[in-house]
């Protein structure tokens, strides 16, 4: 009876995961989808606490301590998730992903230890009989869970640090070979743990964990910060697979289904994100984006840069028919989304049509700009995706680029030697006037020069996005 209730709870949870993921795919239903999955998760956790028992009918012990751990985790998780700035969402996701990976790693370590202890017990009882061997597939799942979970943990933490700008890109000659050797060594230790079960001990488990942790670090280190979203998405699917390994070990359906779903959906999402940048996954992971290769494109970026004042810019926009705002990471860092909305408001009051051009990878994550602008109450239908807005730039009087750089770099179309060559960009250069708001002439995240800034129809408006934007709003009001 109790088994049936537990199984049904897991089934319900699995259905909420599937339904939740489906609902997350559409803007109207996404929130419901998230809540649905959260409810399912709660059901699964409570059912496990109350109803779970092992093959000998033994119920779970340490319940008060488990509940204490749940309460502590909930408190910290809730606090962190509520406190984090919208601009830091990507690294927060990465951090939580790493926690899941670490959790999977710990489970594997403890389960291997548990099995070893059980075998030792059995062989004692059988008086030097053969070593009790557990199901080989279970062993494989334990080892795989440890390997994948650890890589996901350390990789996610490195991605987190990179997005926080606490860590740069580290590259050296022969890096790929070293990385592959570390991975190979980790796999070899993993095979030993399975094949030589009973003859090797926990020190081999620790060795595997160490190698996997190191691999996670060296795997993410050389990848450029602009590509972190792809890496996070990939590590996300890794953690899914690690969770599924746990499902194998315990024959636990909800872990298996949840884990594999995220594993496959996450992998596809990773590929889709790469496609949005017109690059392949291998290109993202194994080519040094924005490193030494960037030098080729700098030669094109010569000539003079025009500057204009906030007053000039205000006049230009206030008497325009059509203004397109192109937001980028600079807008996010300066927290300028609210002022930006004010500007839109002021311009619309003067009969100017204003829309926003959102590049799929503007900011640090796909959808980053949409989230930010939505926070500032910018209406959803003012945000226009790249394919739709590109033909309209020709009829645009002013394109206002706010802290965006690589996504408007014409080198992506014209310079085959550029590392971003082939990436679809916003064709702001087609607009009659381009105003670029930037803090300085510094290169963008990909580390390359932008010839757009030297075009005759481009003027630069230097300064912090929020301060400049506020000045602009005041100037427009004063006109």
């Amino acid at each position, binding site marked *: 009876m109790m088994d049936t209730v537990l199984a049904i709870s897991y089934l319900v949870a699995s259905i909420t995961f599937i339904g939740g993921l489906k609902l997350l795919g559409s803007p109207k239903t996404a929130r419901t989808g998230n809540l649905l999955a959260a409810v399912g998760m709660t059901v699964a956790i409570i059912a496990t606490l109350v109803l779970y028992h092992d093959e000998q009918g033994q119920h779970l012990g340490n319940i008060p301590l488990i509940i204490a751990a749940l309460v502590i985790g909930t408190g910290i998780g809730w606090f962190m998730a509520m406190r984090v700035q919208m601009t830091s969402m990507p690294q927060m996701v990465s*951090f939580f992903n790493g926690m899941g990976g670490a959790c999977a790693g710990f489970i594997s370590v403890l389960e291997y230890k548990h099995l070893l202890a059980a075998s030792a017990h059995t062989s004692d009882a059988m008086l030097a009989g053969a070593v009790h061997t557990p199901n080989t597939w279970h062993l494989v799942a334990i080892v795989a869970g440890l390997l994948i979970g650890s890589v996901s943990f350390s990789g996610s933490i490195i991605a987190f640090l990179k997005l926080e700008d606490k860590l740069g890109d580290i590259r050296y000659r022969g890096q790929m070979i070293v990385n592959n050797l570390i991975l190979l060594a980790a796999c070899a230790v993993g095979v030993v743990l399975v094949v030589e079960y009973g003859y090797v001990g926990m020190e081999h488990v620790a060795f595997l964990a160490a190698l996997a942790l190191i691999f996670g670090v060296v795997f993410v280190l050389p990848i450029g910060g602009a590509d972190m979203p792809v890496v996070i998405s990939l590590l996300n699917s890794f953690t899914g697979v690690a*969770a599924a390994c746990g499902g194998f070990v315990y024959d636990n359906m909800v872990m298996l289904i949840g884990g594999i779903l995220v594993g496959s959906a996450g992998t596809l999402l990773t590929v889709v994100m790469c496609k949005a940048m017109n690059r392949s996954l291998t290109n993202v992971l194994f080519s040094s984006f924005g490193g030494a290769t960037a030098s080729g494109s700098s030669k094109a970026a010569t000539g003079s840069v025009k500057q204009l004042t906030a007053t000039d810019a205000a006049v230009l926009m206030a008497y325009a028919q059509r203004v397109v705002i192109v937001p980028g990471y600079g807008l996010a860092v300066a927290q300028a989304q609210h002022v930006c909305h004010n500007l839109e408001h002021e311009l619309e009051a003067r009969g100017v049509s204003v829309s926003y051009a959102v590049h799929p990878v503007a900011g640090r994550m796909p959808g980053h700009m949409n989230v930010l602008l939505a926070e500032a109450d910018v209406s959803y239908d003012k945000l226009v995706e790249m394919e739709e807005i590109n033909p309209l730039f020709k009829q645009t009087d002013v394109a206002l680029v706010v802290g965006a750089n690589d996504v408007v770099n014409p080198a992506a179309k014209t310079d085959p030697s550029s590392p971003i060559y082939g990436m679809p960009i916003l064709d702001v250069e087609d607009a009659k006037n381009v105003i670029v708001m930037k803090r300085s002439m510094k290169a963008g995240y990909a580390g390359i020069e932008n010839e757009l800034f030297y075009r005759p129809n481009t003027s630069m408006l230097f300064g912090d996005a929020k301060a400049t934007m506020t000045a602009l709003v005041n100037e427009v009001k004063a006109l």
Partner: protein
Amino acid sequence: MDPATLSLIYLVVLMIFLGIELIGHVPSVLHTPLMSGANAIHGVVIIGSIIVMGMADDALSLTLGFIAVVLGTLNVVGGFVVTNRMLEMFKKK
């Protein structure tokens, strides 16, 4: 390979296809919340950590299990809350 393991493998294969179908045509606007939501769902690994901690019979296992449950809860709670906060931004006014 015993029948039980085999049926698990069937399940895995089906889930892989289901996962791909579910994500098929999602607008890029929703990539970040979707990734974050998926991130919360793989927090289901917490079930394993609860089981492992519930069966722990020595101080070391108990301590490690405790850490695992805390980390797993972080993944679940943080994941869902962050996703919800992102999606709140999409609310129609």
